């Protein structure tokens, strides 16, 4: 690098972190890390689950206070005592967890904390609605600003979170896994947005586990590993494999496990399953040893349908056969008894009990196995939990730490471990690798393959095409609560999947 290059770089650096340290009870989340963000550039922050990425985001937005080190804004040292201070300094973020208010309207969710004021300092609702609608339109989201957030789906909520981040006039925009809950179309719109922000000279920090996104968007990269700074540089100077190596400390092959499926007898047959508002006329058969992929855009109703299979919602019509016998499943407990388990998508709400320790989470659905006469047996619980957690390469200080203190990806592993421990016959995994790092993803995939090999029937709901194609023996595509295609073998290609999921195929058929 030449002298001028360096000084120009320094001038562009809007925000710098120097030697940031952050410890939680028992964990050193950040151990003297550096990070610099430059105007008009996208910096990708990569690292395994628990590397400390989200922690840095929280420090930058004033939610956590660092135990050591310095934050420099335009070269001057600064502190962010709370989220408001960070926003006023021009730092805004889309957090990993959606942090919104169900009972408030979309407009208010976007503007709470900095609502436009009218006379007597009272909130100007009209102005707020108008500006909210403008911002939503600018990111291509067709969401009514006046509806309650509770009435929106996950994807729309995420768009509201993005709109909120844009509602402050920021110089630094942070995005912590913004695409995790978005589908193809919305991701494209987000990318366009990032390009626009870049052209406006904003400094952007982009966090993602998806490498294609990183190579597509980022100008620079920074790598953390286990709370430590590993390296940084221009994205053009590294290859995919280099980056993975820096992140994990070794090479990881992205190839999905090779399987030679032995497909057996039908285990689960669903016929004419319908619900008044959520899905209609679902028919399919699942065989032992098979991995059946469910693809669709986010919001296609896959989760709702899967949840009705385990008795969370009641279908209005249709039957389920298990081993050719009709069964009515009224509750998840009954489903577990039948050998059907569902690994939910929303791990914070449905998957994990974050306040309880890891081992208690893992054994919760299998308490019958680790107890005698209804009395719990600690040693057996630990043994069971350890077996499955270590298989999934969980990173945790001990099995007695609470799940809430784990990183997002590690929480996901606990949730998967918990369901595997029930030793089911049919396992439904809803977005099983959402938000988990590349190494752990491979571990989950391996494990899925192994389960299918051992004769389990697996349903995998995923919105990631490579994962669907790499893992499934057969794919069902859902759209607006209906099955629109069932694909096998050579029919399974990215284009076909997207066309069915987006409804292009249907339009074509209708046109003919």
């Amino acid at each position: 690098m030449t002298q001028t290059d360096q000084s120009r770089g320094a001038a562009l650096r809007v925000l710098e972190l120097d030697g940031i340290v952050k410890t939680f009870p028992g964990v050193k989340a950040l151990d003297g890390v550096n990070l610099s963000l430059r105007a008009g550039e996208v910096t990708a922050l990569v690292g395994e689950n628990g590397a400390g990425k989200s922690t840095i985001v929280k420090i930058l937005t004033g939610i956590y206070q660092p135990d050591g080190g310095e934050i420099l804004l335009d070269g001057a040292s600064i502190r962010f005592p709370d989220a408001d201070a960070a926003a006023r300094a021009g730092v805004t973020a889309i957090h990993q967890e959606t942090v919104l208010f169900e009972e408030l309207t979309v407009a208010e969710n976007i503007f709470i904390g900095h609502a436009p004021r009218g006379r007597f300092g009272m909130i100007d609702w009209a102005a707020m609605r108008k500006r909210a609608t403008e911002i939503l339109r600018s990111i291509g989201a067709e969401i009514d600003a006046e509806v309650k957030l509770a009435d929106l789906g996950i994807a729309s909520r995420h768009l509201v979170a993005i709109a909120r981040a844009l509602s402050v006039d920021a110089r630094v925009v942070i995005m912590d896994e913004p695409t995790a809950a978005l589908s193809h179309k919305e991701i494209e719109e987000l990318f366009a947005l990032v390009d626009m922000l870049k052209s406006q000279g904003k400094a952007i920090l982009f966090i993602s586990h998806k490498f294609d996104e990183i190579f597509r968007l980022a100008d620079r990269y920074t790598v953390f590993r286990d709370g430590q700074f590993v390296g940084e540089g221009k994205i053009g100077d590294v290859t995919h494999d280099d980056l993975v190596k820096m992140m994990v400390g070794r090479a990881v092959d992205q190839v999905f496990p090779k399987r030679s499926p032995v497909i057996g007898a039908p285990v689960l047959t669903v016929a004419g399953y319908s619900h008044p508002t959520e899905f209609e006329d679902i028919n399919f058969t699942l065989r032992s040893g098979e991995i059946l992929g469910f693809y669709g855009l986010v919001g296609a109703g896959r989760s709702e349908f899967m949840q009705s299979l385990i008795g969370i919602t009641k279908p209005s019509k249709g039957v389920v056969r298990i081993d050719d016998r009709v069964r009515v499943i009224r509750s998840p407990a009954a489903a577990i008894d039948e050998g059907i388990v569902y690994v939910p998508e929303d791990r914070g709400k449905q998957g994990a009990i974050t306040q309880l320790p890891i081992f208690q989470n893992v054994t919760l659905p299998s308490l019958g196995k680790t107890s005698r006469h209804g009395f719990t047996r600690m040693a057996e619980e630990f043994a069971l939990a350890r077996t499955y957690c270590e298989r999934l390469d969980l990173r945790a200080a001990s099995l007695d730490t609470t799940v809430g203190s784990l990183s997002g990806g590690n929480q996901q592993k606990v949730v998967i471990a918990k369901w595997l421990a029930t030793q089911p016959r049919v396992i439904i995994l809803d977005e099983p690798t959402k938000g988990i790092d590349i190494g752990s993803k491979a571990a989950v995939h391996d494990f899925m393959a192994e389960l299918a090999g051992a004769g389990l029937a697996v349903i995998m709901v995923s919105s990631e095409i490579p994962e669907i194609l790499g893992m499934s023996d057969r794919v069902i595509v859902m759209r607006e609560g209906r099955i629109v295609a069932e694909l096998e073998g050579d029919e399974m290609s990215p284009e076909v999947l997207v066309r069915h999921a987006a409804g292009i195929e249907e339009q074509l058929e209708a046109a003919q």
Partner: protein
Amino acid sequence: MTLRTIPREVILGLVIIALCGVIAARFPNFVRPSNLLSVATDTAPLIMLALGQFAVIVTRCIDLSVAANLALTGMICALLNVAMPGFPMGLMLPLALVVGAGLGAINGVLVWKVGIPPIVVTLGTMTVFRGIIFLLSGGSWVNAHEMSASFTQFPRIPVLGIELLAWIAVIAVLGVYLLVTRTALGRAFYAVGGNPHAAVYTGIDVGRTQFLAFVLSGALAGMTGYLWVARYAVAYVEIANGFELDVVAACVIGGVAIAGGAGSVGGVVLGALFLGVIKNALPVVNISPFWQLAISGTAIIIAVALNARSNRPKGRIILKKAEHSHEPV
């Protein structure tokens, strides 16, 4: 329209009207305008306390000390009146407001700065406040003849034919309405209660917001304390004992979510009026006094159950045809 799509305020309003109708069938005098007005006036203290409680519950807290705060502030006003009969009445109400707010602030600080759960804090201060009344008054009553006439007459001063007490309640309702719908603080109440975690991310100081809700609740309780003591012309340790549960019940009947984040001023006022009608009607209608407790308990349960039915979470609407017919089955 189904039961679920009608706003709860309307349902509650209809229930109250129906209730009045039933009472009128047995006792026509009950629905005379003058009597209805007097019922509303009698309910004013409950409305004011419920407004404060509403703010507190919306922020995901609860204030069980309101009745004790009322009693303590009322006793302080009464003792002040006895000691200085010349104390100007124009200042008595603001003074009660400040004293009440101070007591509310004690709750608020314990919740905000020490981080004790609100129900624990207020369960504690509830008994402590009552104890302090005993210490202040030596356990004896302050009676009508010890109070100055202007002290006891204040809440009854008629303005446009309606007692001042009722006007003060109306002002409190409007004030709280503007506060929660049109100010940043009011919206922060909802945000904090709806999702405290997210509130931190949006730069709202959760503890401070809850503190302010407690101060509001305390101020309203204190103000009501003076009005109560003046109206009934007596102050003693046990006044309004157990009233906190009525206040909470009024809020919940009015549709305030006990888990925080949801509720409306209109609902709260109607919830309080519902209880007010029942409490005032029972002694009037020819019902054995021994039935009153069971009846008001049943009424609370039915009101809450009705309310919950109109508020069932709807399933998501994914199917296109379902979206158009828009009639959740």
